[in-house]
């Protein structure tokens, strides 16, 4: 009873704690390339460049090199975060069916127990070895919680814990989805921003080149 509460508390806290990504973006050299707003996980929104000229005016020395440099740095940080979120999502996607299958088995045990029946099974002794057993469901199961900890629970409690675990995994996966959508938007926006700054610079150089020819 007390043990169960500790575990459910820990699982609940794990789901509530959302990562804060703000720190990773704290050192972006140019504040103006960010809009100032962040999503619920602290990931900053990229500022859309309305006018390249105006944005250049806000940089410390008005050079295209500095601006593109800062945007490139932002792009890299976004890509790193994107990779991290993708990996977390894959991890959750693997966990979810695993937990669902475990739930299925516990429910089967419970059903047999309630019907006062035993059942026979081939169970895994090791990776390549199966043993035959007659299982008498006795009302409890042991859940492996990780970190060399295994705890015994009555069926109903085990089912509650597994269902909470499943819910948390799905929530984390959904959060990853939302963050990935948002991050990809920011990545594409930065890429388009950079291309426009570059094009602006090419245009400007050409215009200046033309002027010099006229003067000469």
């Amino acid at each position, binding site marked *: 009873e007390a043990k169960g509460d500790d575990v459910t508390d820990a699982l609940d806290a794990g789901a509530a704690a959302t990562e804060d990504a703000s720190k990773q973006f704290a050192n972006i050299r140019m504040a103006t390339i960010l809009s100032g707003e962040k999503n619920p996980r602290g990931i900053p929104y990229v500022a*859309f460049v*309305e006018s390249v000229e105006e944005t250049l005016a806000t940089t410390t020395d008005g050079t295209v090199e500095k601006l593109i440099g800062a945007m490139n740095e932002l792009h890299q940080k976004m890509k790193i975060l994107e990779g991290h979120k993708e990996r977390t999502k894959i991890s959750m996607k693997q966990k979810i069916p*695993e937990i669902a*299958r*475990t739930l*299925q*088995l516990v429910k*089967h045990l419970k059903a047999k127990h309630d019907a006062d029946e035993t*059942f*026979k*099974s*081939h*169970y*895994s002794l090791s990776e390549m070895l*199966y043993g035959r057993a007659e299982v008498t469901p006795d009302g409890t199961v042991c859940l492996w919680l990780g970190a060399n900890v295994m705890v015994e629970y009555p069926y109903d409690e085990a089912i509650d814990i597994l269902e909470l675990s499943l819910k948390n995994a799905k929530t984390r996966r959904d959060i990853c989805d939302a963050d*990935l*959508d948002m991050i*990809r*938007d920011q990545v*594409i*926006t930065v890429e*388009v921003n950079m291309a*426009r700054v570059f*094009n*602006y610079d*090419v*245009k400007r150089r*050409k215009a200046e080149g033309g002027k010099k020819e006229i003067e000469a």
Partner: protein
Amino acid sequence: AAAARREMADTAVDVRKEDQKLINEFGRLNARTKEIRADRAVLQKQLEELDDATTELAMGDGDDVQLMLGGESFVDVSEDFATEHCEAEQERVQAELDGFDAAIAAAEKRQKELKKLLYDRFGAQINLEE
């Protein structure tokens, strides 16, 4: 090539905020469709395995039926129990597959619309193909 780039920079249509939104949406749909297709392939394989299982059950004589539960154990069950279980799984997987197909169709439809809007505005300046 440098001359072509200069010419392009001259005639470049500027990107407005609303254009950026459309470009971003296109990118998001691309990524999502890719993922759904991968998930769909996995599910399709599961459905085929379930179909094989129900066929075997129907053909068999009802003895020695074992159901894989928990991903690691094989539990003795009656033929009826196994058939019921497999059929329920088939329904569930088929419904999920149908969901995927609907999502892919909706995404492709929207991407077609976005392509028209973006190509109309930017022409050769933008490339939206795979």
